[in-house]
């Protein structure tokens, strides 16, 4: 045998235990990449076989047949139809839920006919036995012409036997299940002669699925197209008939190999649970309690580790400054790179917690019920039943929320969810909101018990939510796709989640964020750091001398002097210059160049607004507890043009509305880039959100002033 690594594609229905098997086979040796040319994620990993060779296992998206229903499922046809290329799998491992095999056999029968060496793993044999189901596996193997292995992917039973069979040399399946239809014999023969296709069914698939043939050269695609035109092929022409024929074959097969059939009585547990969990009132009460629990956990549990990460990186920064010789390289490292990495790590607790919950919801079978309950409402806004989870999580943080849209199969509904989630008011907006509200809304009670400041804050959250729903509805009308939206979905049996699968999901999502979105976040934060720390000409170099000269006659503490120098430096940095340059644009919103600088720097993250305002007004480095100091300073600020207060209610509300709608978060842009695999959607999102923020702030300021 050659030393070439064995490639094995893992295929199966959704809920067949495919991811458990994948996790069992590969452990932590998993990596995520992309299939060439498409936006679908490729999960693969290595598995050591009994003969000490390593096999690459490729986890293909769960599907019900070789005919794709979504972009994800398209990959299955793409990979399996492309024979004789370096990426062709050497074997296909099909996993089927033994408790109900019919649907799995439909997919299996198609894969056998495609002609790659195939192995069948019958999963959940223990549940099948409990339900009184048993099969004559030898007869089944003989009938299908492929090896059949009983396994239990939840506890690893049968996997040694499976690995042994995976390592054995194996040829294409011995039998063909479905002879090609009489009507298509001629075109299939013609195509096979012209393109040297391995077998009839593969050639037939070429004719049925021209979309899956990206691996063919242009000339070869034209050959397929010509034959399709000649014989008047259209997609799905014989698909219905083929499906019926395959099912009747499967029925005959089952009649021969089934030793004992089930009465499905074990499903009663699921039905009983559904009576409560899908109840017309209690179902929703339970669902919103679950959502609230998730939301609270992201907020409360993530705080401690986030503070810890924050202080570790802050201390690392000051440590580096103290031990390394002063210079541009040290400040780049200590003030640019280290805080930049800290800014990536800070998201890990929230991502881990949200995905722990989502993975439990998916594993237990509850997520399908969420879709079932929310479908009708969400559909009206172009969203999916599953969009509720990302939208709600967006109130904590948009980063994990956008990663959570992965669970939405429909491309259009997923894209809309990604586009509107950042409008939900996230926790980073809270410091900005608190300071501005305290500045312009009196701390009084209305109607005896409503705190006005609390009402204003609630109003902003509501505003964000309405904007998200409204934008979704508009995008539903704007985005046109041929893909038809349908629900037809299985409500899987409830199961206790497999905890190791939950763990794998957390590791996978965290890795994906740190290594893919992290690169972009680090790059932008270094650029922003350079903009705020360097300036042109010598006004920047001489900052210290100028400030000393200016404050000659004022008695200042050492700290006060340092604050003034920092303010002067920021004013004369590139960020300061940009802030001044955009003053004419933001003037109609009621902002001056100082706020302009804060808008630029807080593009890194919204909460930076508070720190920048503190620096600009030379209050020095502040933490949240010093919020009052900033407030007093801002209150005292005079607008030179009017002679009145700088932060009038009009300016304050205009800023509040601006921060409610504006994108102002580079990490969100980075994660949208990663999730949509391109710059198109993040740029559209940045543009529409900025436009929405600008126009609304303009409207509010002009209305109130």
């Amino acid at each position, binding site marked *: 045998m050659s030393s070439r690594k064995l490639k094995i594609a893992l295929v199966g229905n959704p809920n067949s235990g495919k991811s458990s098997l994948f996790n069992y086979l590969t452990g932590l040796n998993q990596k995520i990449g992309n299939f060439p040319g498409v936006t679908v994620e490729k999960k693969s990993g290595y598995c050591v076989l009994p003969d000490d060779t390593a096999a690459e296992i490729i986890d293909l998206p769960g599907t019900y*047949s070789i005919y794709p229903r979504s972009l994800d499922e398209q990959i299955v046809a793409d990979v399996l139809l492309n024979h004789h290329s370096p990426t062709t799998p050497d074997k296909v491992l099909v996993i089927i839920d033994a408790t109900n095999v*019919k649907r799995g056999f439909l997919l299996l029968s198609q894969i056998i006919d495609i002609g790659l060496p195939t192995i069948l793993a019958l999963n959940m044999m223990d549940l099948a036995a409990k339900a009184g189901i048993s099969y004559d596996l030898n007869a089944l193997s003989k009938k299908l012409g492929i090896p059949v292995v009983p396994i239990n992917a939840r506890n690893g039973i049968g996997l040694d036997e499976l690995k042994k069979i995976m390592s054995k040399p194996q040829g294409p399946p011995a039998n063909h299940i479905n002879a090609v239809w009489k009507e298509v014999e001629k075109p299939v023969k013609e195509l096979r002669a012209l393109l040297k296709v391995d077998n009839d069914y593969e050639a037939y698939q070429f004719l049925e699925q021209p979309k899956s043939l990206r691996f063919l050269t242009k000339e070869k695609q034209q050959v397929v197209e010509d034959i399709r035109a000649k014989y008047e092929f259209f997609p799905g022409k014989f698909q*219905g008939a083929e499906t*019926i024929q395959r*099912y009747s074959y499967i029925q005959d097969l089952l009649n021969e190999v089934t030793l004992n059939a089930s009465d499905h009585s074990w499903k009663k547990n699921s039905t009983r649970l559904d009576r409560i969990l899908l109840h017309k009132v209690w179902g929703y009460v339970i669902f919103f309690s679950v959502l609230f629990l998730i939301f609270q956990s992201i907020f409360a549990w993530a705080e401690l580790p986030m503070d810890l990460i924050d202080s570790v990186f802050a201390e690392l920064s000051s440590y580096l400054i103290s031990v390394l010789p002063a210079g541009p390289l040290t400040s780049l490292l200590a003030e640019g790179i280290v805080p930049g990495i800290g800014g990536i790590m800070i998201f890990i607790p929230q991502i881990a917690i949200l995905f722990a919950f989502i993975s439990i919801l998916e594993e237990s079978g509850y997520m399908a019920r969420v879709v079932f*309950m929310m479908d009708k409402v969400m559909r009206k806004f172009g969203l999916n039943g599953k969009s509720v989870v990302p939208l709600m999580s967006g109130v904590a943080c948009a980063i994990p929320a956008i990663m959570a849209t992965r669970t939405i199969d429909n491309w259009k509904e997923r894209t809309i969810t990604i586009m509107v989630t950042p409008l939900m008011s996230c926790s980073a907006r809270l410091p900005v909101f608190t300071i501005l509200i305290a500045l312009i809304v009196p701390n009084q009670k209305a109607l005896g018990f409503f705190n006005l400041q609390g009402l204003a804050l609630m109003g902003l959250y509501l505003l964000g939510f309405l904007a998200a729903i409204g934008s979704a509805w508009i995008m539903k009308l704007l985005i046109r796709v041929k893909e038809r939206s349908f*629900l*037809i979905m299985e409500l899987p049996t409830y199961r206790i989640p497999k905890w190791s699968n939950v763990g794998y999901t957390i590791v996978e999502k965290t890795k994906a964020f740190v290594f893919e979105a992290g690169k972009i976040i680090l790059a932008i934060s270094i650029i922003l750091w350079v903009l705020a720390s360097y300036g042109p000409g010598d006004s920047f170099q001489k900052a210290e001398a100028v400030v000393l000269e200016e404050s000659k006659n004022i008695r200042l503490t050492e700290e006060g002097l340092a604050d003034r120098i920092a303010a002067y430096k920021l004013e004369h940095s590139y960020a300061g210059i940009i802030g001044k340059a955009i003053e004419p644009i933001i003037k109609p919103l009621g902002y001056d160049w100082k706020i302009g600088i804060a808008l630029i720097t807080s593009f890194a993250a919204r909460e930076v607004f508070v720190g920048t305002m503190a620096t600009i007004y030379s209050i020095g480095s502040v933490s949240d507890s010093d919020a009052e100091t900033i407030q007093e300073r801002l209150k005292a600020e005079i607008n030179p043009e009017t002679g009145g207060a700088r932060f009038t209610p009009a300016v304050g509300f205009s800023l509040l509305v601006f921060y409610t709608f504006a994108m102002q978060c580079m990490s969100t842009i980075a994660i949208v880039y990663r999730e949509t695999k391109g710059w198109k959607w993040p740029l559209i999102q940045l543009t529409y959100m900025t436009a929405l923020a600008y126009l609304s702030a303009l409207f509010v300021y002009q209305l109130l002033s």
Partner: protein
Amino acid sequence: MSGYIKNVAEMRPGEVAIISGFTDEQLSVKLMEMGCLPGAPVRFNFTAAFGDPICISVSGYELSLRLEEASTISIIN
């Protein structure tokens, strides 16, 4: 017997019928892939809060469908 053919969307919770065919070719293939086969018994389990979508049992699977999708499955009972 009139010419009108009943469909799954018109069933009541708990009702059982036999699938006789489909009226939407594109959907029919997906429905069959999921286990809705002509000749198979189908049970209408329950509906969501606003009467849509619905949950049915067929071939030992529990499926959820929108009413418009269910109305493409013809039945006899």
